[in-house]
């Protein structure tokens, strides 16, 4: 459970040399390399990133997707089979999310862990015989579309609004910030629900809508960064050198705020999937025949007691997505703003035991080891590392 550093370095003497090791690690590296290195030290974030990548791959490769078209049901008039309007790209899973298959095993999941077998319908079937695995995968796709659309759009709007507001100050600032206040004061669920009822509920629309309303917090943060940064010398220098406003904003100041932006965008994305779920729960989200995880969970919420597989599978995927994004966000925050990282000021029981074990060996050898309390007394110096990031 200790930080990976402790394991790689000699645990006995690590306390005193910790800082210099850390400093040595980042010496001579670019900001990007430092960030990357710090991010990869966050085990949770790395695992989450990999898991998330696998999830995206699984969701899109398994059942394929449909591109273009109205997204509504269409019937093949020759065979009388149901399809979805649009160009269909098939995946490796041979079932799709709209066909009614004959019900196998009372609709229960056919997946078994021992002996491992996937079976006909690993996640079970709903009352019409639709394959839950395909539905959950399609729902994951659509939820991911919502998440990414909302994340990208709200980031763009938030950055632009915040940047202009913070850079130009004065009238533009107060106008933009009052506009931000107007959006902020309307609870996001209200705004989302009202807009979704008006503009209809497919994944694209909901994603765009959420993006259009979720940017307010980011705009405020970016504005605060800009207010501080525009007073800095390098901005003056750029201005004297004759750089245009646009160039100063996007080439000089913006790169310095990327930490705040990246971290908050991930938080926005994890919020977006939960808002989509809430909207669906209230019946204002994505509508059939389109599927999202929230809509699935809402559709089958009554099945919680009776056919739990209908309720749990989509729920688990929601949690996995949100959890992955949150952990990645945490890793990014640590990477961009390591001030909260701190060398532990006490020794965990594990290291104490290890030390005790080592000491025992040393005692046998007849040497006298220093007491643990002496190590504790050396106050950790974490704040010096904070100097490497921008002031807030």
């Amino acid at each position, binding site marked *: 459970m200790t930080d990976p550093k402790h394991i790689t370095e000699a645990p006995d003497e690590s306390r005193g040399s910790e800082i210099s090791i850390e400093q040595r690690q980042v010496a001579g590296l670019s900001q990007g390399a430092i960030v990357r290195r710090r991010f990869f030290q966050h085990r949770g974030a790395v695992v989450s990133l990999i898991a998330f990548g696998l999830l995206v791959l699984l969701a899109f490769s398994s059942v394929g997707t449909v591109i273009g078209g109205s997204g509504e049901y269409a019937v093949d008039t020759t065979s009388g089979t149901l399809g979805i309007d649009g160009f269909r790209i098939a995946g490796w899973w041979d079932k799709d999310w709209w066909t009614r298959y004959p019900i196998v095993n009372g609709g229960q999941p056919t997946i078994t862990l021992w002996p491992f077998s996937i079976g006909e319908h690993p996640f079970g079937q709903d009352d019409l015989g639709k394959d839950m695995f395909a539905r959950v995968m399609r729902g994951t796709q659509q939820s991911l579309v919502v998440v990414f659309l909302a994340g990208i759009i709200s980031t763009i709007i938030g950055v632009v609004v915040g940047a202009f507001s913070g850079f130009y100050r004065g009238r533009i600032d107060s106008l933009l910030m009052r506009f931000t206040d107007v959006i902020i004061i309307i609870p996001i669920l209200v705004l989302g629900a009202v807009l979704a009822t008006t503009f209809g509920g497919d994944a694209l629309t909901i994603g765009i809508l959420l993006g259009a309303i979720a940017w307010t917090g980011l705009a405020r943060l970016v504005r605060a960064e800009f207010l501080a940064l525009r007073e800095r010398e390098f901005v003056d220098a750029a201005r004297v050198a004759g750089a245009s406003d646009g160039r100063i904003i996007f080439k000089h100041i913006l790169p310095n705020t990327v930490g705040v932006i990246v971290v908050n965008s991930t938080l926005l994305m994890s919020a977006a999937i939960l808002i989509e779920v809430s909207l669906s729960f209230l019946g204002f989200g994505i*509508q059939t025949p389109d599927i999202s995880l929230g809509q699935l969970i809402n559709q089958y919420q*009554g099945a919680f*007691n009776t056919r739990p597989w209908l309720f749990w599978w989509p729920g688990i995927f929601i949690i996995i997505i949100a959890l992955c994004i949150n952990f990645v966000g945490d890793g990014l925050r640590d990477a961009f703003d390591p001030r909260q990282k701190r060398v532990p000021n006490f020794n965990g029981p594990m290291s104490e035991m290890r030390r005790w074990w080592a000491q025992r060996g040393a005692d046998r050898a007849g040497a006298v080891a220093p007491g643990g309390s002496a190590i504790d007394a050396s106050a950790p110096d974490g704040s010096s590392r904070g100097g490497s990031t921008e002031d807030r």
Partner: protein
Amino acid sequence: MNIKRGAAGAAVIAAGALVLSGCSLPYESEVIEGTEITVSWNDIIDNFNSSSTSGNNIANSNVTYLTTSSFNYYDNSPELVQNTEFGSYEKTSDDPLTVEYTINDNIVWSDGTPLDEADMLLSWAYIFAGVTDEEGAPLFNYANPRADLASATPEIDDNKLVLVYDKPYVDWEVQFGIGSVAAHAAVQLAYPEIEDAQEAKDQLVEAIQNKDSEWLAPVAEAWEADFQSANTPESDLVKLSYGPYIVEDLVEEDYVTLVANEEFAWGPSPKYERITIRQIADPTAQVQSLQNGDVQVASGQPTPDVLQLVQETETADYHTSDEATYEHVDLTFNNGGPFDPATYGGDEETAKAVRIAFLKTIPRNEILEKLIHPLNPNAVVRNSILQIPGSPMYDPIVEANGSAEYAEVDIEGAKALLEEAGVETPVEVKFWYPEGNERRAAEYELIATSAALAGFDVTDDSEPNWEFTDTAANPTNPHDAVIFAWASTSLALTGTDQYLGTGQPSNFGGYSNEVVDTRLSDLETELDEDEQIQIQIDVETELWADGYGITIFQFPGLTAWDQGVEGIAPAPLAPYYFWNFWEWAPSDGATAE
């Protein structure tokens, strides 16, 4: 736990206990002291006048059903039952149609004021728009005023009212009744200076007889507005009762508690001292609170999961049955689509062939089997447009109306019809269902895949809004076929012209058939039952032959109740399971000790 509750509950509420032996009447109350039943419904009362435009809905009617008595009511067959302990009515003449209503003696409102002819006259004044303002509009904002039926001020006598109809009227038996508002209450709320109830009634009778609209205007206003109340009303006049229960406690959107009416002695006696109706909208939540014991009765539209949840609840019994609401597909005749003769250059026959071909492909049995049978194993395909399965007229009508043509999916027949008509396939049908409604989306899937085999391309035209029903904005229905449900609230024969008649407000498909129009207006004035059946057969034969649309199934209803309660017998028509509330009783096991 039940046992303990009964004893302690009685002790706690003993102070407010009812006087059961104080009654001088031979009537014996069977109210068991200290008993209370909590039931759930998806909405509760917010208006004590369930007759006014704003108050006329099922939630209000359910409560006023408990606080009023009536000349007749629907049981769970459904059949109309007379309640002679309250009063009687008698048709004394067919021409002109004359009905004499008599209220029994000793029937009083809960404040002790007798219920008499003044209350009946007030009912006449709003039901038949007896009093109008200067512009001729009905003074009372009644939900469905019929100025054309009985315009003459009725004769009144002690507890008696003689209603003379202007023309014969088929549904006369359910047309008139006494509402939930006391005549003296409406007057006293409008004119607080009139303190004596009898005086208030006398003045009201006089004003109605003289059509004194100026004096009546405040009464009409009080009749509508003063009875709106989402919480326990401040004035006792608002919650006056002449039924077995009185509203005791009302909390907005939460619950209403009714307590047994001490004065009540004219009808079957209820057993529970209190009935609490809790508002729980979601059927799963209702069943969960039944499991938890929060409520003793739950009801609603089941899903397979709700049903299974009920089945797994060991402490509950349940009943699945048909409700009066039925699902149907309607076709559009005037929007230039595949079912409109104009598309084929006005060729009626071709359009009709396309319509019939389409209806023949609708897999009604499959829909029933896949979607409804899991919820109500006894459900049957509905084959009559006018009558609900199980009603006395249903069988004779179905036998003769031509619905047998559509009994089974007939792909080959449909193909042949299309070929004969010389229509190019695939025929595109824009099919509407309410977006987000899972069951109808599934119905669409079944219909679309079946119809495709015969050469129909049924496209998904679902929208969240029912825009086509706004006839002002959409004079013609943009969808070629729509699926939705009509809800019936009574067995009345009239009212079907609203959606079948030419140009009527609920006729969204632009259907028009002269025979149907005239026969339906015949039906309104036909008093002979055999004739009534014949007329309905005539109408339906036209409808089925025209390919007007197709009926599919009755909505399944589920009522579940705790085993500590007995006497619950769900009914398909309003007031649903409330209809026999006086028979509800704690079951023997719960009260024996």
